[in-house]
């Protein structure tokens, strides 16, 4: 069905997309959360009329604006890279994937971009209430933007509400609501935006902590910490809840990803949750030998409980998923590959019959292809038909494992930071805890690290699938010369890095300048 693709092209295309996505994700989380924090602060200003809240709103708005622009710049590249670098994928899923993307543009981007102008330039041009409404609409627009792209991403992890049309050789949507409200989409959206809220709250607390350490803008810093800590406590608890929901979905729909997250090679009943663990070998050796962790401390039976709600539930490991486990009804990958190849051959035979105008044969093949039993037993393994080596189906386990565990550990640390910040700011003792203020400042880079690690787990954990079980990266890629992708990778790497450095430098300068009084004078 698909011609063989040069692996270096796939690798470079993946690298380019990962580069763009990871840069994009450096800027988006801050937008998701600070817009709400700003809107909350402005609401307090409008309610109380106290000028310090306006000053505070404007200060965080300035930092948000610097960050927003570069997020927009990297975002546009991501959208178009689906076409430029993954054109086969674009056609295969355009019928499903395109709709959320278009809705995102119409419903969310315009809301955000229209009212952001009012937010920045409307202070003396529109009424305070309309300005406040604009700030809230920017926050809602930014988060709605995230909804639609995450719906699309969730569909790639768990394709629902669609059917394959042999006529057009693509997946087509049959239920918009199933796509929109799939449990994976809901969890993914909530987990992602709450991670953005947590990062934003840590950003506000960290910078305010720096002001307190320097004994500058003390009132602003205290009030900012109060708002951000409350926002952070609520968000981080929601983040843990949605993280648990996401992991349950992964256990159900992407067992290989769960096995990678937990470094589980041999499945069993009553599997423990790894608290700390380490591998002895490299990823390649690990995948080849399929051996368990070299060292681990685990909470007994907890993974079985978290994943399936039963202390003795069976959790499959990498070996079970690759070699099969008849007792547990798990097909070996070799069988899935066979069935996938058969589905591809039948599809090609159907196309040949169509081209030869053999109506009887094409009608008979079409009937077989669209038969629900055939779809369930063969077509669902379509993607496996493109796989040559079963080891290709094992993601980079050490990388996914370490990323996941570090992310979770940081998540719990952040909850503690929020609770302590809130407690001490209410008690008026925060300024005396200088060690804590330094710790809070140090949380900013850790928040970014945790946020990026989340995507490493989500996306590397599902390799090699672009669409789970249906399309591997090798068939999704555009046929471009590897050199072209290498050049554009270099081009984007240079420009994104330069702009990131510029952004950080501008941001640091603005923080150093601090909030300004009315008329733009430094206070």
């Amino acid at each position: 069905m698909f011609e063989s693709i040069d692996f270096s092209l796939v690798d470079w295309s993946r690298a380019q997309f990962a580069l763009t996505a990871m840069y994009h994700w450096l800027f988006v989380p801050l937008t998701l959360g600070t817009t709400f924090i700003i809107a909350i602060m402005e609401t307090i200003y409008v309610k109380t009329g106290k000028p310090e809240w306006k000053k505070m709103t404007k200060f965080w708005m300035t930092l948000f604006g610097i960050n927003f622009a570069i997020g927009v710049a990297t975002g546009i590249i991501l959208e178009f890279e689906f076409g430029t670098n993954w054109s086969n994928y674009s056609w295969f899923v355009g019928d499903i994937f395109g709709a959320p993307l278009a809705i995102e543009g119409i419903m969310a981007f315009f809301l955000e971009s229209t009212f952001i102008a009012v937010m920045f330039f409307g202070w003396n041009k529109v009424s305070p209430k309309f300005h406040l409404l604009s700030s809230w609409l920017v926050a809602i627009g930014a988060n709605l933007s995230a909804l639609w792209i995450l719906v699309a991403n969730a569909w790639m992890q768990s394709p629902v509400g669609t059917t394959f049309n042999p006529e057009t050789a693509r997946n087509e949507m049959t239920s918009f609501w199933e796509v929109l409200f799939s449990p994976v989409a809901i969890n993914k959206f909530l987990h992602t935006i709450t991670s953005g809220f947590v990062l934003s709250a840590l950003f506000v607390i960290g910078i305010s902590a720096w002001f307190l350490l320097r004994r500058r803008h003390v009132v602003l810093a205290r009030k900012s910490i109060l708002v951000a800590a409350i926002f952070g406590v609520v968000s981080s608890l929601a983040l843990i809840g949605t993280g648990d929901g996401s992991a349950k979905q992964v256990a159900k729909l992407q067992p290989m990803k769960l096995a990678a997250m937990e470094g589980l090679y041999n499945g069993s009943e009553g599997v423990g949750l790894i608290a700390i663990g380490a591998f002895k070998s490299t990823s390649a050796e690990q995948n080849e030998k399929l051996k368990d962790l070299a060292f681990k401390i685990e909470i007994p039976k907890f993974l079985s409980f978290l994943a399936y709600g039963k202390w003795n539930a069976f959790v499959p490991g990498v070996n079970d998923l690759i070699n099969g486990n008849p007792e547990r009804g798990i097909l070996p990958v070799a069988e899935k590959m066979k069935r996938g190849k058969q589905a591809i051959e039948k599809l090609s035979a159907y196309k040949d019959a169509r081209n030869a105008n053999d109506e009887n044969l094409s009608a008979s093949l079409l009937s077989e292809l669209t038969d629900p039993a055939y779809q369930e037993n063969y077509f669902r393994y379509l993607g496996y038909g493109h796989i040559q080596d079963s080891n290709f189906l094992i993601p980079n386990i050490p990388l996914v494992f370490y990323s996941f565990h570090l992310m979770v550990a940081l998540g719990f640390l952040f909850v503690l930071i929020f609770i302590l910040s809130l407690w001490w700011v209410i008690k008026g003792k925060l300024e005396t805890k200088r060690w804590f203020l330094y710790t809070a400042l140090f949380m900013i880079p850790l928040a970014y690290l945790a946020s990026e690690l989340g995507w490493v787990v989500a996306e590397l954990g599902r390799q090699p699938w672009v669409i789970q079980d249906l399309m591997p990266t090798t068939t999704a890629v555009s046929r471009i010369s590897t050199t072209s992708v290498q050049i554009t990778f270099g081009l984007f790497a240079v420009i994104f890095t330069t702009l990131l450095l510029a952004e950080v430098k501008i941001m640091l300068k603005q923080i150093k300048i601090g909030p300004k009084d009315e008329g733009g004078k430094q206070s």
Partner: protein
Amino acid sequence: MITAISYAFLQEYWWAIISLLGSLLVFLMFVQGGQSLLYTIGKTEMQRTMLVNTLGRKWEFTFTTLVTFGGAFFASFPLFYATSFGGAYWVWILILFSFILQAVSYEFRSKPANLLGSRVYEIFLIINGLMGTILIGTAVGTFFNGAQFSLNEFNQVHWQTDTRGLEAVLNIHNVSLGLSVFFLTRVLALLYFNNSVDEAEIAERTKKHLWINAVLFLVFFLFFLVVLLVKEGFAVQSETGIVALEKYKYLHNLLEMPLVLVLFLSGVVLVLYGMARDLFRKPGKGIWFAGTGTVLTVFSLFLIAGYNHTCFYPSVFDLQSSLHIRNSSSSEFTLTVMSWVSLLVPFVIAYIWYAWRSINNKKIDRKEMEAGGHKY
């Protein structure tokens, strides 16, 4: 309501939406046109700041319209998205590259410690002003002149040139559209400056450059139009789906769709009136006439590219691989879902209009730039 509508109608409806978004994008690219005039109209730092700020309050509309245009194309005609973006790789990458530069330049330009210096960000804006307009116009030219690709039985694209879409600049007709768009956006920008900037020196320079850019626009646009109306077009037979060349196809399209002809002529007249109004009467209102005219003209050009059994993305390498609205669209179900969503478009336009007026109710002047509020 929508469920009772035929698949064919939905395909036509979505081509109309794409055409509308494309035409709004060309109008809103006055931002790019204005960027290309930064040093031509702004001779002092303060004047450039005023220009950057008046354009900067609108750049996100253009950017968002471009993103939505891409998203809507992906959603409604995914085969075009896959074919053109995956095939004409370098053209699209260069366009996108210029837009990355634009997005940060407004916000970073006037900020202290911006690493590269204000002038570099201004140069970024000029690069986007030049490349964004000329390359998008040239790329759209391939809607009428075709591109070098073929599709296999699974609709996978094979691009036939190593230059990956850059070969479009070797076709003078494509380039004439690119330059028409470039000079049109400059004309619109000059009209927008008249409408939004209160500075005598800028107004004086704007008038002079309006003449020059209007004449250049008319030369390139007339060339593009005359060639378009006399050239062969890519027709698709409705019964068989076979694609064949047809003489005077685009002229036939205009004549066979009188409403489109009326829209096109109205658009051209409004553009001319908008320019003339600011040149010969009190400057300021011309942007609204020329802007409306631009939308109508570009909208009708898109319609003659895709309606009346015409291939909107022809392949000159393999005619039968050409894309038309019937063979490249999403499924009926998806188009129906999106049609419901499209009912929100008037609401979106309404709030954009309201917000635009709220921000532009007073012209930008030196006083505002010196007042210390948020500025670019």
